[in-house]
């Protein structure tokens, strides 16, 4: 990890040591800087291998290797790792089955990948000096937009033009319909925004808080730093919970949107 910290340091130097303004405290937003580890350009697009890309690759590798290692025996009576793999499998499978139904099992691999990917990215972000990929709105919005578009395509593909009835609530006075349809459409269109901002804001806020209180520990010194440190310890626990919860929420909302598309209300 030396070269990463070195990269941070060099980047920090460019931004004035990563210290914000004249407060003397480290800039809490510095941890979110994107750093190009291997500059790269493909078809005129900037495809540089960044610290964000590095942690995405690490997450994918960790998930794959953990799954392969856990299932290396495939024994009838599972060991510790195999239990974890099977529990995650059944956790997501039940989530899909409960929220979407059996026909949703076609999309189970996607939901499974999504849940584990977001969860692993969130958890890797909790490692000191690491980078939290999900604290970037670009990443979370891309995921949410992909889900939104995919779910909408599935809805139209399954119900044809009838999917538009999804925006017309039943049992409503005719006079109210235009207003309600507009509200329904807006609420549908804001789904990718709420889905992505929820994850991004949670991760960013949490890590910013940790950074701020971390700098308090140093700033308050031996005398008062303990209180900030104690808070940080507790807050780290909370952040671990949030990391799991947000991955879960992201996956379960995807299931719910998928259910809407497949079954319409």
């Amino acid at each position, binding site marked *: 990890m030396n070269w990463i910290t070195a990269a941070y340091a060099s980047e920090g130097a460019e931004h004035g040591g990563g210290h914000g303004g004249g407060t003397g405290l480290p800039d809490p937003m510095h941890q979110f800087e*994107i750093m190009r580890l291997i500059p790269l350009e493909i078809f005129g697009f900037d495809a540089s291998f960044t610290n964000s890309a590095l942690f995405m690759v690490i997450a*994918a590798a960790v998930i794959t290797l953990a799954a392969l290692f856990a299932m290396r025996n495939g024994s009838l009576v599972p060991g510790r790792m195999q239990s974890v793999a099977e529990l995650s499998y059944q956790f997501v499978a039940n989530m899909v089955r409960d929220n979407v139904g059996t026909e949703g099992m076609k999309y189970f691999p996607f939901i499974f990948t999504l849940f584990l990917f977001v969860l692993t990215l969130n958890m890797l972000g909790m490692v000191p000096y690491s980078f939290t990929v999900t604290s970037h709105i670009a990443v979370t919005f891309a995921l949410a937009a992909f889900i939104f578009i995919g779910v909408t395509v599935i809805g139209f593909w399954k119900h044809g033009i009838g999917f538009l009835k999804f925006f017309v609530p039943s049992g409503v006075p005719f006079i109210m319909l235009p207003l309600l349809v507009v509200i329904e459409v807006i609420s549908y269109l804001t789904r990718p925004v709420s889905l992505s901002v929820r994850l991004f804001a949670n991760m960013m806020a949490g890590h910013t808080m940790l950074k701020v209180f971390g700098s308090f520990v140093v700033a308050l010194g031996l005398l008062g730093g303990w209180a900030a440190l104690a808070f940080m310890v507790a807050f780290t626990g909370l952040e671990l919970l949030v990391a799991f919860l947000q991955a879960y929420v992201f996956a379960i909302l995807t299931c719910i949107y998928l259910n809407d598309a497949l079954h319409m209300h």
Partner: protein
Amino acid sequence: MPQLNPLDWAPQLIWLAITFGVLYVLMLKIALPRIGSVIEKRAAKIAGDLEAAEKAKRDTEEALAGYEQALAEAKQKAHAIIEEGRAKLKAETDAERAKLDQELAAKSAEAAARIEKATEAAMKDINSVATDAAADIVRQLIGVAPSKADLERAVTAARKA
């Protein structure tokens, strides 16, 4: 906020697409089938074991029913044998008793005949004794010996009276 720098978006999105796509394929083709097959295998094994247990239980019940039936049959047979024995014994006893009765009856008839004969003989003797006694008495009284035929007639008439 570094998140809002549009220049940083392209590399993130490109690598997100690459890593997520690769991970999706790896999960779809390798990891999930492995986990799923193990879970299915286990479920099949458990179902198979349960079925085997159910079959064993059914077999036991069948065997138990067979045993109980055999027991009932044996009991019935034993009962029949006892009945038969008792009937045979009864028949034999009855036959024996009948034979004995017959013998006793024959014997008692014989004895009765003998008694009759003896009585007859005794009666005959009494006649002759009475005749003799009457002859004696008549001679004593009138000094004349009556004829034997008269005497006998008189004794017989007297005894009849």
